[in-house]
């Protein structure tokens, strides 16, 4: 049986539908992520799972039991808040002990479990400090320890890394994955940062305007986005408006206005004459200097319009003959090399057929 089942959950605030008929099933031990831009309904959904808000319709089941009538303190679900929400008048140890005290555990047990928990998050020397005496990363670890100490069935994390700087964020991401594996607790993680979601999750639900657009593993979400929103929200992507010329069981032949024919893998339910979008990721686009001999099938001529050097890679923006701009990404594998092409250079771009995807409108 699934650990958490969200069935047809809808939540409206006045005229605004924050969560629209959402269905999600989460298995025990999963690191599940709700990903979407701000206002997509992910936090509202999280608050309903925690018990701070109620759906207008639908059910939320934990271990097969509807939990909607149960107040937050009675649900075996704990939350790590974006602001950490540490109790300012309690020490680190006091904060971590709080869930155990509320659960009515004996003082001896509380003491030994708090000690163990402090060791896990490497804060043993900080047990008697108050939250305002801690750094951002330390507060974060206290919040994790406090959320995990009473072994909840589910730990909800509401953008917990949002307030940290980039370097610390990366460290905490690794720590978070380790904590999840050690504790064996199911995580439901809310974020708007797509790279964080891809790096941490077993599965991701991409949300937009209260709807779930796609639920899948990170690699599937990235490689096979179901629609334009998912494709553009997760990573960078090149898009071209296309029309289907030919649809077979092995491939689709598409026509791009002013450019020519391109081939993509076949897709169910696509009809000849359908219009849609062809997407190709920048790192899948190959780029080479222009030469007459190399301009064969599936190779498109263009001019380097601009480039962006970011250290490990350089992104080239190539303007094709029909005016479409395609981004191509090249790793800077040669030491000291900043760029392979100059602005204005004539180049050829191409990609493997199976790297591109067709999306119906």
């Amino acid at each position, binding site marked *: 049986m699934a650990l958490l089942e969200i069935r047809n959950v809808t939540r409206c605030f006045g005229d605004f539908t924050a969560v629209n008929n959402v269905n999600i099933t989460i298995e025990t031990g999963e690191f599940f992520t709700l990903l979407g831009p701000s206002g997509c309904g992910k936090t509202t959904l999280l608050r309903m799972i*925690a018990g701070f808000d109620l759906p207008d319709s639908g059910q939320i089941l934990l271990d097969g039991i509807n939990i909607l009538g149960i107040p*937050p*303190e009675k649900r075996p679900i704990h939350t790590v808040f*974006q602001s950490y929400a540490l*109790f*300012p008048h309690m020490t680190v140890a006091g904060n971590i002990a*709080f869930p155990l005290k*509320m659960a009515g555990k004996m003082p001896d047990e509380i003491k030994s479990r708090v000690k163990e928990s402090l060791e896990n998050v490497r804060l043993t020397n900080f047990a008697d400090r108050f939250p305002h005496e801690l750094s951002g990363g330390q507060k974060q670890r206290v919040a994790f320890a406090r959320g995990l100490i*009473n072994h909840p069935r589910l730990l909800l994390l509401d953008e917990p890394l949002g307030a940290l700087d980039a370097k610390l964020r990366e460290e905490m991401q690794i720590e978070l994955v380790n904590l999840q594996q050690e504790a064996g607790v199911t995580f439901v993680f809310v974020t708007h940062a797509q790279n964080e979601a891809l790096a941490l999750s077993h599965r991701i639900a991409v949300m937009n305007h209260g709807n779930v657009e796609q639920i899948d593993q990170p690699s599937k979400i990235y490689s096979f986005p179901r629609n334009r929103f998912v494709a553009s929200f997760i990573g960078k992507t090149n898009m071209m408006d296309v029309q289907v010329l030919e649809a077979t069981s092995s491939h689709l032949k598409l026509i791009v206005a002013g450019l020519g024919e391109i081939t993509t893998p076949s897709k169910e339910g696509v009809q000849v004459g359908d219009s849609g979008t062809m997407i190709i990721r920048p790192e899948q686009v190959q780029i080479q200097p222009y030469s007459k001999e190399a301009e064969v099938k599936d190779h498109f001529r263009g001019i380097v319009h601009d480039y962006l050097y970011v250290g490990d890679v350089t992104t080239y923006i190539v303007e094709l003959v029909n005016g479409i701009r395609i981004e191509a990404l090249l790793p800077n594998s040669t030491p000291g090399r900043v760029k392979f092409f100059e602005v204005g250079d004539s180049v050829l771009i191409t990609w493997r057929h199976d790297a591109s995807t067709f999306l119906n409108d």
Partner: protein
Amino acid sequence: MRNRNFRLRIVATLVYAFLYIPLVIVVAYSFNNSRLNAEWVGFTLFWYETLFNNKEMLVAARNSLIIALSASILATALGTMAGLAIHRYKLKVLPIIVLSPVATPEILLGVSLLLFFLQVLNLTLGMISIIIAHTTFCIGFVAIIVRSRLQGMDWSIFEAARDLGASPWQCFHLITLPLIMPAVVAGALMSFTLSIDDFVITFFTKGVGEPILPIQIYTMIKTAVTPEVNAISTLLMLLTLAMIIIATKLDSGVLRGEVSR
């Protein structure tokens, strides 16, 4: 620039002088060895001695202390609840209901309370009616102070407590109350101060028989302003000053909260 600062300083000095010189004179003449508040004769504690031998004055002081204590306890309990409710439920009417006694002219409040006690409650005026009256106008002050403290707080702290297993009551007495305690105590001290020196509302809601300090002082002045009045005023001033200093020490937002109402 320098010139402007200088002028500002003169104006400020004059304003404070205007406010505090009368008080300084009252205090100074309470130690004056003369029946008249006219010229300085010499230092004495005679007036304080007379004061402490004045039976009626002592009864008045005791009555006032009882009223101030009772009213501040009641007002603190009710005002804290009101402050929490105003912060939590964003109702438009609630702040108006709770805070309007703070802004209502005292004389209006006094008259309406008098009518309410006599005609609606059919209450015999006395200590009880004064305590109720004082509680009424102190609730608003406590609510303002408590709310201003809550405004600076992260609401997710209270949700976190519930989330981690605390019942609403546990959340209140383990998290909310300790966090707002400075404001609650400040509110209590503020109420005590307001109650003990209140004249107008006390005048309207008091019965016959029991003397109340501010009224007693007023009665004494009617016959003759003796330095005994200066002495009791000095003591009263010291008490309220101490209370206000403690209140501001506890919660630096106390005074700001009052202004922002």
